[in-house]
């Protein structure tokens, strides 16, 4: 079956999408045709939106929350924020088998083929893959591309897990490099109780599990939890001076960070081409891993203007 392409002319508004994304949590609601959660296969749909230009003030606010310096190019995680309304639109569609609220973000891999200038117009493409077996339920990927002209300048794959009856035989994914516990921390981060709300304001991701303990508790968390993509962005900001122009950064989201929190950041930076990093509990709670990541340089693409940004 051919992929259905839906071209959007403007970014969809996120709040109503959240209402629909969360609706399947209401018993019986998913029987309604416009509510996601029918439980079938992922629809073969590709959402497209052309000519998206980041607002410099919004980038500045995002950079501040994530600790990036405000440069003339986008933080490597920022196109994910630009594409977020498309992710929500995809998952809040009535044909989608689950509601987005309640899905667990387990992995994300971003490949930046070159630096993206703040003023560059990006053509965004978002598509979900078919369901795959997972030991703890069912998983699928949301693949995002940011194109400039005919070139894929940036791409990202987010893996989501729908908890449920798993397939114990399913591979839980390839072995992922881990910064071992003996590696001393290079920094300690103090994360405020309002971090989820601050990141929600700059990213648009207002999932109730991040907003407040009162909204996180009904969804099974004792307190609001930090956004995985914030944790990833913060780690990249800490490594900013060492990032090549073109690189891939792959992370696994492990235990959620309950806010407020003090966590450790440890990295293998300085030992080789690849940089492994981890966000983990402090001191005796080092075995509590929140995020594991690896940065790998890739061959740089040049921008259409002929020079790397």
């Amino acid at each position, binding site marked *: 079956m051919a992929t259905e392409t839906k071209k959007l002319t403007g970014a969809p508004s996120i709040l109503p999408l959240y209402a629909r994304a969360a609706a399947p949590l209401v018993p019986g609601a998913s029987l309604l045709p416009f509510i996601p959660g029918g439980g079938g296969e992922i629809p073969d749909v590709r959402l497209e939106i052309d000519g998206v230009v980041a607002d410099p003030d919004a980038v*500045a*606010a995002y950079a*501040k929350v994530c600790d990036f310096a*405000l440069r*003339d190019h986008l933080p490597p995680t920022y196109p994910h924020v630009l594409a977020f309304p498309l992710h929500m639109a995809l998952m809040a569609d009535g044909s989608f088998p689950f509601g987005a609220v309640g899905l667990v973000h387990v992995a994300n891999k971003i490949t930046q083929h070159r630096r993206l200038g703040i003023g560059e117009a990006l053509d965004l493409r978002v598509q979900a893959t078919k369901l795959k077996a997972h030991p703890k339920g069912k998983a699928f990927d949301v693949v995002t591309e940011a194109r400039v002209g005919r070139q894929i300048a940036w791409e990202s794959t987010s893996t989501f897990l729908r908890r449920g009856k798993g397939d114990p035989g399913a591979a839980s994914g390839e072995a992922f490099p881990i910064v071992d516990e003996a590696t001393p921390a290079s920094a300690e981060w103090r994360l405020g109780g309002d971090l989820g709300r601050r990141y929600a304001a700059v990213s648009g991701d207002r999932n109730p599990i991040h907003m407040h303990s009162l909204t996180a508790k009904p969804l099974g968390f004792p307190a609001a939890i930090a956004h995985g993509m914030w944790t990833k962005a913060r780690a990249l900001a800490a490594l900013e*001076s060492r990032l090549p122009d073109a690189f891939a950064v792959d992370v696994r989201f492990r235990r959620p960070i309950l806010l407020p929190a003090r966590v450790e950041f440890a990295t293998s930076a300085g030992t080789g081409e690849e940089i492994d990093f981890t966000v983990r509990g402090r001191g005796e709670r080092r075995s509590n891993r929140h995020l594991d990541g690896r940065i790998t340089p890739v061959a740089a693409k040049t921008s259409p203007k002929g020079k790397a940004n």
Partner: protein
Amino acid sequence: MNAETRRVAVIGGNRIPFARSDTKYAHATNQDMLTAALDGLIDRYGLEGETLGEVAGGAVLKHSHDRDLTRESVLSTRLAPETPGYDVQQACGTGLETAILVANKIALGQIDVGIACGADTTSDAPIELNEELRATLLDANRQRSTTDKLKTLTRFRPGHIVPRIPRNEEPRTGLSMGEHCAIMATEWDIGRAEQDELAVTSHKNLAAAYDRGFQTDLITPYLGLERDGNLRPDSSIEKLAKLKPVFGGPEGTMTAANSTPLSDGASAVLLASEEWAKAHDLPVLAYFADAQTAAIDHVHKREGLLMAPAYAMPRMLDRAGLTLQDFDYYEIHEAFAAQVLCTLKAWEDEAFCKEKLGRKAPLGAIDRAKLNVNGGSLAAAHPFAATGGRIVAGLAKQLHEDGKGRGVISICAAGGQGVVAILEGPEGAK
């Protein structure tokens, strides 16, 4: 300490375009802008991963969290993290003073290469807690028991939420920089028309410099700005004549056009020994030949606040064995058109040169066609600590284009200070 000194080469510079306050860089911090200026310099001269002797930088309007602004900016860039950095603060002289510091260490052989830089934001300006609130909070913190802490906190009054906003004023006189300059303009009898003319020339020269591509390798665009936001290529005497005075009362001669606006920006200059430049295959744009800083007593001796460069200049010229007329270019920082004109008039004035400078003859007039030939602060605007780097890089490039020649820089600063310097072309002064 080395007895012999060596020549200091200006390799090049980079800055971000300067923005008027609360425009394109409204949300950029000093550290963001300084990092952006350094990024561009590092890219242009292939400094990625290099350990430099030092980076000296500064800002005039600093937050308390801007501690070690320069070192923190270095750590955000691709310079080797083993590159030391330190902050300097000397009002509007900051940028040029950092160049002197780096140049002197290179001359003495203490370092081989370094960056002089500066940034300032008037948009992301520090706003301090109300002074009484600050004292109350600190006192409460000093109490041991909760009861005593709470008791101290009862000193809080609703009025304390009004923060302290920094003013552009001279601490010991209470007058703003512009008001001080207006007094100087009156004392030296500087007219409105000549100030406006200087401003128009500044815009025309800067616009022409952009048009002929002169700025291309001096600037890296930032946050959607490719040219200085203050530049008005169509500026004219007629338009400027319509403006109302902003300093010196209704009879004043200083307007928003012949005074620099509040602005945001950053600049950086790469200085090195000749050996380093050769080893890195980088051409020398100019040599940093000499410099002098001076201060006057604006508090008790009623000296004009911004007249210190007039004193610094003859000291440097005497040491270098030069006269004021021995230059091909004069880069006089246009804080206010009136400041430039007062300074030039003072150097021509027999009484001032005799009584204040203790000289037999005046320094004399300069050829005005050689003044700020690629535009000045009135056109580019003046993010305080970034101005020195803008001027050093621009003059060095001009001297490189000519091959030989000599240029002099003069920058006035708050607190009654002034910084001057001499640059010489790569093939010598003549």
